[in-house]
C-alpha cells in the first residue's frame, strides 16, 4: 500500500513537472505576454559577435489591475504591439515582462527591486504615474537602468534626481500654458473653472493651467474633486452661468463626458476643455475642446497602420497608449544599437537611450531626449470636437 502511495505521488509529481515545464515553455514563445527568455538574453549579452540575433527583456510597469487598469492594459497592449513589430522587422527576440503596480508607489518601489534583480532586463517602459517615478527613481539610477515613461508629466521628475529617467510626453509645464493661452486667446474666455482631480496627474496639470490663466488675466476658480467621485452634477451646479470654459483634468475620458453632458443638461453655456487625459473616443460632446501631445494618431500616415492593427487586436484606445508604443520603440532601438556595438548590457542601452532619435514617430514628430530626459521640441495640439464627437485639429 505504501509503495503504491509513493509510486502514485512520484508519478503525479513527474506529471506536474513535465506539464508545467511545457506550459512554461508555451509562454515564453508568446513574445508579448511572456516571461523573459533569460538564457537567450544573457547569451546575446555575453557573446554578441557569435549571436547576431539581438534580444533581451523589457519590463512594462503599469497599473495592469486595480482602479486604473483601463490605462495600464492599454499601455501594456501598445508595448506588446511595439515589441512584436520590432521583432518582426529586425528578427530580434526582445520580450516583455509585465510588472503590475496598480498605480501604487509602494508596489512600484518593490517591483523596481525585482526588475533590477533580473539581469535579463535591459530597459523599462513606465512607470505610469509621477509618484511611481519618484518611488522607483533611486533603485533604477543606482542600477543604471534606463526607464522611459509615457505618462508621467510632473515637471519635477526631470530636475536631475533621476538621471536614468526619460519621457516621451511633454510635461505639465508645456501643456498648462498652451491650453491657458488658447482658452484666453482663441476662445476668449473671461471666466474659467478648473476641475482638479486629486491624482498626481490631475493636480499637476490643474496647477499649471490655473497659474497660466491667472498670468493671462483670466478669472479662474479651481474646484478639487476626489478621484473616486461618481457624480459630477453637484460640481456642475457650482459652475456659474457666466463661466465660459470648464477645464477638466481627469485621467479617464468618460468623466469629462459626464461633466460635458451635465453642463448640456443644465443648459449652461460653458464648454468643457479636457487635458490630454480626456483625448479618447469616450469624450465626444460636440463643441468641447481637448488637448493632446500629438496630432490625432489616426490621421498621421506613419501611425494609421499601427492604430489600425491595434484596434483590430485590442479594440478602442485612448490617450495613454500610443506614447507607450514610442517609449518601447526608443528602448528597443537603443538596445539594438547597443547590441550592434557589442554592449547590450544596461549601461550600453542607457547610453544609447540618450541618443534616441525616432524619425517620424507615430506621435507625429521626431522623438529625441534632451539632457534631462525630457522629449525635445515638446508641443501640444488642441482639438475641437465636432457634432459627431470627432476631434478636429484647431491648433
Amino acid at each position, binding site marked *: 500500500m505504501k509503495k503504491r502511495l509513493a509510486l502514485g505521488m512520484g508519478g503525479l509529481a513527474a506529471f506536474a513537472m513535465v506539464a508545467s515545464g511545457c506550459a512554461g515553455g508555451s509562454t515564453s514563445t508568446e513574445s508579448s505576454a511572456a516571461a523573459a527568455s533569460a538564457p537567450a538574453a544573457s547569451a546575446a549579452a555575453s557573446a554578441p559577435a557569435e549571436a547576431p540575433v539581438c534580444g533581451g527583456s523589457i519590463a512594462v510597469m503599469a497599473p495592469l489591475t486595480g482602479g486604473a487598469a483601463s490605462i495600464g492594459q492599454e499601455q501594456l497592449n501598445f508595448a506588446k504591439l511595439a515589441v512584436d513589430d520590432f521583432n518582426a522587422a529586425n528578427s530580434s527576440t526582445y520580450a516583455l515582462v509585465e510588472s503590475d503596480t496598480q498605480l501604487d508607489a509602494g508596489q512600484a518601489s518593490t517591483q523596481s527591486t525585482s526588475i533590477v534583480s533580473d539581469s535579463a532586463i535591459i530597459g523599462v517602459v513606465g512607470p505610469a504615474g509621477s509618484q511611481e517615478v519618484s518611488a522607483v527613481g533611486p533603485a533604477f539610477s543606482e542600477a543604471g537602468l534606463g526607464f522611459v515613461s509615457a505618462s508621467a508629466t510632473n515637471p519635477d521628475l526631470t530636475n536631475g534626481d533621476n538621471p536614468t529617467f526619460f519621457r516621451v510626453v511633454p510635461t505639465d509645464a508645456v501643456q498648462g500654458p498652451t491650453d491657458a493661452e488658447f482658452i484666453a486667446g482663441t476662445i476668449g474666455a473671461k471666466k474659467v473653472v478648473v476641475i482638479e482631480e486629486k491624482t498626481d496627474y490631475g493636480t499637476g496639470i490643474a496647477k499649471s493651467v490655473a497659474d497660466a490663466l491667472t498670468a493671462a488675466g483670466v478669472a479662474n476658480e479651481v474646484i478639487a474633486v476626489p478621484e473616486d467621485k461618481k457624480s459630477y452634477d453637484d460640481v456642475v451646479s457650482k459652475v456659474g452661468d457666466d463661466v465660459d470654459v470648464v477645464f477638466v483634468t481627469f485621467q479617464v475620458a468618460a468623466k469629462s463626458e459626464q461633466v460635458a453632458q451635465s453642463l448640456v443638461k443644465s443648459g449652461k453655456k460653458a464648454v468643457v476643455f479636457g487635458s490630454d487625459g480626456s483625448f479618447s473616443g469616450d469624450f465626444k460632446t460636440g463643441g468641447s475642446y481637448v488637448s493632446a501631445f500629438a496630432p490625432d494618431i489616426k490621421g498621421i500616415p506613419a501611425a494609421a497602420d499601427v492604430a489600425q492593427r491595434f484596434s483590430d487586436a485590442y479594440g*478602442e484606445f485612448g490617450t495613454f497608449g500610443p506614447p507607450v508604443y514610442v517609449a518601447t520603440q526608443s528602448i528597443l532601438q537603443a538596445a539594438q544599437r547597443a547590441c550592434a556595438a557589442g554592449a547590450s548590457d544596461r549601461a550600453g542601452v542607457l547610453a544609447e537611450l540618450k541618443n534616441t532619435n525616432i524619425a517620424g514617430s507615430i506621435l507625429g514628430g521626431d522623438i529625441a531626449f534632451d539632457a534631462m530626459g525630457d522629449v525635445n521640441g515638446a508641443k501640444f495640439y488642441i482639438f475641437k470636437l465636432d457634432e459627431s464627437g470627432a476631434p478636429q485639429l484647431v491648433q
Partner: protein
Amino acid sequence: MEYFGEQLVNGVVMGGVYALIALGYTLIYGVLQFLNLAHGELYMMGAFFGFFTMTALGGPSASAVPVAVMIGIMFIVAMGGGALLGVAVERFAYRPLRNSSRLAPLISALGVSLFLQNAALLLFGARVRLYDTGQFIDLRSGISIGRIRIDPTEMMVVIGALLLMAGLWLMVNRTRLGRAMRAVAVDQDAAVMNGIDVDRTVVWTFAIASGLAGAAGVMSGLLLYPVDQYMGVFAGLKGFSAAVLGGIGSIPGAMLGGFLLGITEALVTGYLNPTYADFIAFLILILVLLIRPRGILGRPAIAKV
C-alpha cells in the same frame, strides 16, 4: 435658494442609488447579521450586464426595440444575472462559513470581490464603457422648476428606488418568505424547528439583495454613464455607509441613510469643497454612530446580563 434646491436634487438622486445598494446590505445583514462586502461587485456586474444587454439590442443609438422596452429588458437581465451570481456566491463562499467566526466570511467576501473584479477585467476587458444615455433619452426633457431641472433618468432613479424599497418592505412584512426571513433573523435553530428551510430562505435573501444590486448597477449606468470593473468598491462603501447610517437591518433606515448620505455629499460639494465631501460624510457617520450606536432607525441592542 434655487441653488440649494439644485444641490438638494443632485443629492436626492445620488442618494437613490446609494439607497438601492444599501437595501441589499441591510437585507442580508438583517437576516444573517453578516456584512456581505462583495455586494458592490454584484452592483458592478449588474451594470455590465445592463450594458451588454443594451449593446446586444442594438446599442444606445440604434436600438431594435422601443427605448422603454430596452430599459425594461436591461433591468430584467441585470437583476436576474445579479441574483444568480449572488446565489452562487452565497453557496460557494458563505454557506461553508455560516457557523464559524465572524471574521471568516469577511475574508471570504474580500476574496470574492477580488475574484469578481478580475473576472470582469478578464472577460470584459479593461476599457471603461459608457451607457450614453443621452443618445436615447432626451436629458433636457423632464420637469423644471425655475432653474432646478429633473431629467427623466433622475426621476426614474428616485421613483424606482422608492418603489423597490416599498416592494421589499411589503415582501418582508407581508409574505411567507418575509416571515421566514424574519424568523431566520431572530433564531436560525428555532426557525428550523418551526419547519422553515433556512438554506432556502438564505438563498432567496441573497437572490433578492443581489437582484437589487443589479438594478442599482443599471440605474447608476443610466444616470452616470461610465461603467468599469472597480466601480463596485467605492459604491459598495457608500451603500454600506448608507445602510449603517440609517440603522443596518432596517429597510426604511437604508433608504433614509442613502438619501441623507447623498444630500450631505451634494451640500458639502455645493457649499464647501468636493474633496472634503467624503471626509465630512464619514465624520457625520461616526458622530451619528457615537450618538446612536445602531444608526438612526436601528433598534438598540438588548444587553442581557
